[in-house]
């Protein structure tokens, strides 16, 4: 990271406002700092390590807590612990580490503890191609832990978005008390591009709701949700004497092992995202007004798709693109609108896996869907996408 206007040597601002030429991974770390990161626990893994190394340098210098944990299971456990104590928390990893995190992602979901996890995807499964690109965690990020729960997942396709969407992930995690994710890929994480960091006062921070009654008030029930289905959160050490458990629990937070309590709790933790999906969902549309063929692509693949659509237009093909910025909740409303507008005839879904995004596209349209897949290690090129548009 080379700030255009380098801060004075003894200044370590949390927000490095200004124009930068910055690595995607570093932009993610800077986004976390700007969002108010207090506690980072992590374990190194390519291609996410630069996030951790950057925070090892930066976070203690702005008064935050950085801990290198013994593994990724411990990393997630530690950030959940710090979050129940009031911290804004994050960890970052890639495939193998992400798989290790799954059990405690479920814990954060059922305890409704805000956490942010960055997964910089590499070619998988297993150790796969550690230093090369993949996009094959699209479904794992949504369904990886056992059971039904909800998550919010952002997919940046540029270093600027690594910065912006990491902030969004912090805000969403706190607002809905859910695990939220920044689902990057190796190309975006290892790409250096212009990143504009706004002035501190322009960066919006949304914090979790807090109890409105003092500790000891009998009316305070730690898991009693407001109308938005999200309960206010009391932190450790404040005197509320909360109990939080991964067991099915009632509004007091106490285990209540009945089907009725389970139904109520699980429906609520799923509905708090599902019913707010229109507010959460983000996407970008390019040239879709008159498009007959719409490419659906995200992350680094959306960069190729953007080029392919522009070239197709030059050739007179009425192509457009829908880029999901939130993979979850999926922008299904806009996809259905496109599919039903009478102009769109076909979708093209390029992705660096063997068919995860197209599965979701298929669910929302009966129109033909052309798949364009690569299992990882290489980007899908504009030429390949153009070919699919011309076919």
């Amino acid at each position, binding site marked *: 990271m080379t700030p255009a206007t380098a801060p004075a*040597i*003894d200044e*370590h601002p949390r927000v490095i406002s200004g124009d930068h030429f910055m690595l995607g991974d570093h932009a993610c770390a800077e986004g976390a700092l700007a969002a108010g990161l*207090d*506690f980072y*626990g992590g374990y190194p893994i390519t291609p996410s390590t630069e996030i951790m190394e950057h925070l090892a*340098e*930066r976070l*203690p*210098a702005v*008064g*935050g*807590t*950085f*801990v290198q*944990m*013994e*593994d990724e*299971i*411990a*990393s997630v*456990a*530690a*950030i*959940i*612990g*710090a*979050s*129940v*104590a*009031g*911290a804004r*928390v994050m960890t970052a990893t890639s495939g193998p580490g992400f798989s290790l995190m799954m*059990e*405690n992602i479920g*814990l954060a979901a059922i*305890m409704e503890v805000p956490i942010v996890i960055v997964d910089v995807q590499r070619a998988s499964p297993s150790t796969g191609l550690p230093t090369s690109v993949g996009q094959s965690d699209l479904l794992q990020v949504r369904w990886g832990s056992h059971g039904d729960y909800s998550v919010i997942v952002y997919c940046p396709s540029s270093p600027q978005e690594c910065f912006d969407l990491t902030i969004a992930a912090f805000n969403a995690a706190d607002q809905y008390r859910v695990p939220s994710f920044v689902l990057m890929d190796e190309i975006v994480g290892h790409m250096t591009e212009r990143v504009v960091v706004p002035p501190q006062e322009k960066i919006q921070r949304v914090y979790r709701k807090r109890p409105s009654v003092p*500790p000891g008030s009998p009316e305070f029930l730690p898991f009693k949700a407001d109308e938005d289905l999200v309960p206010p959160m009391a932190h*450790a*050490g*404040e*005197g*509320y*004497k*909360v*109990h*939080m*458990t*991964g*067991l099915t629990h009632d509004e007091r937070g*106490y*285990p209540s092992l009945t089907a009725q309590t389970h139904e109520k709790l699980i429906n609520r933790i799923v509905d708090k995202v599902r019913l707010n999906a229109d507010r959460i969902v983000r996407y970008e549309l390019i040239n879709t007004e008159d498009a007959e063929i719409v490419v659906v692509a995200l992350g680094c693949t959306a960069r190729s798709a953007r080029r392919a659509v522009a070239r197709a237009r030059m050739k007179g093909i009425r192509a457009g693109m829908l880029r999901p910025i939130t993979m979850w909740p999926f922008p299904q409303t806009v996809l259905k609108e496109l599919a039903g507008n009478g102009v769109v005839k076909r979708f093209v879904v390029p992705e660096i896996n063997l068919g995860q995004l197209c599965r979701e596209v298929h669910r929302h349209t009966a129109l033909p869907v052309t798949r364009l897949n690569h299992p990882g290690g290489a980007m899908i090129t504009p030429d390949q996408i153009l070919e699919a548009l011309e076919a």
Partner: protein
Amino acid sequence: MSSGAIVVESHPADTLLRAERLPHILCPGCGIGSVVHTYVDAIAASGIPQDKHVCVSGIGCSGRAAGYVNVDSYHTTHGRSIPFALGIATYRPELHVTVISGDGDLTAIGGNHFIHAARRSVALLVLCINNFNYGMTGGQAGPTTPLSAMSRTTPHGCWERPFNLPFLAQAVGASYVARWTVLHVRQLRAALIHAMNKEGFRFIEILSPCPTGFGRPNDIGDGISEMQNYLRRCVVDNGIDLRQTDIDLTQQDSPIYVGDFVDVDRPSFRPQVVQHAH
């Protein structure tokens, strides 16, 4: 009420326990309730405000402890109580975090976290309720099951060497190490109060009866018989070399050493604070 039973309006532990959660789920004769009671008793005597105590548990019968104590309490996932507690303790160093969990939780699935938290000297008091088996899942063997003991997964007798937990804790950096049984209520209480007021990673192994999972298959009888069996062998030796504190139940008269074994000053792990990175 006509039976002549004495009904008391209140109990000294009422504000320390979540009375509305009682009766508990533990079996008759189980030692876990005794540990919970001694723990809350120590909270009251610790000199630390109740609101500054935090209790974290993993999964297992012992892991249910967090559900009964009236402090901020977190019942986490199997084996992960220590890293979860690390998050609280390092982010809020003014809090006094105690982990209460089982032998399987802390030393099998959570063994890696145990050694690293001790190595780092994380400000945690860790109580391992050692009942020599996995009680909650019905009595399987674990890393503390003694040689030759019967369990659901060692139907021919356990043939794996068990951990000597005090030795392990000392070796990996604990500032305080003790072993008591649930019958040593006063010693345990004193150990807890002392340990609550110390820095670093503090570890107390508490031998506890599990009549359901361990007593029955090993023909030990009920919880009291199991404890009497241990108590008969107990030798208090605070200064013993911890290489000698293995527990051998195959020899009728082999001693079980108990005591306050290690008590050294070791500052707690604190997050690094950097004023100027360059």
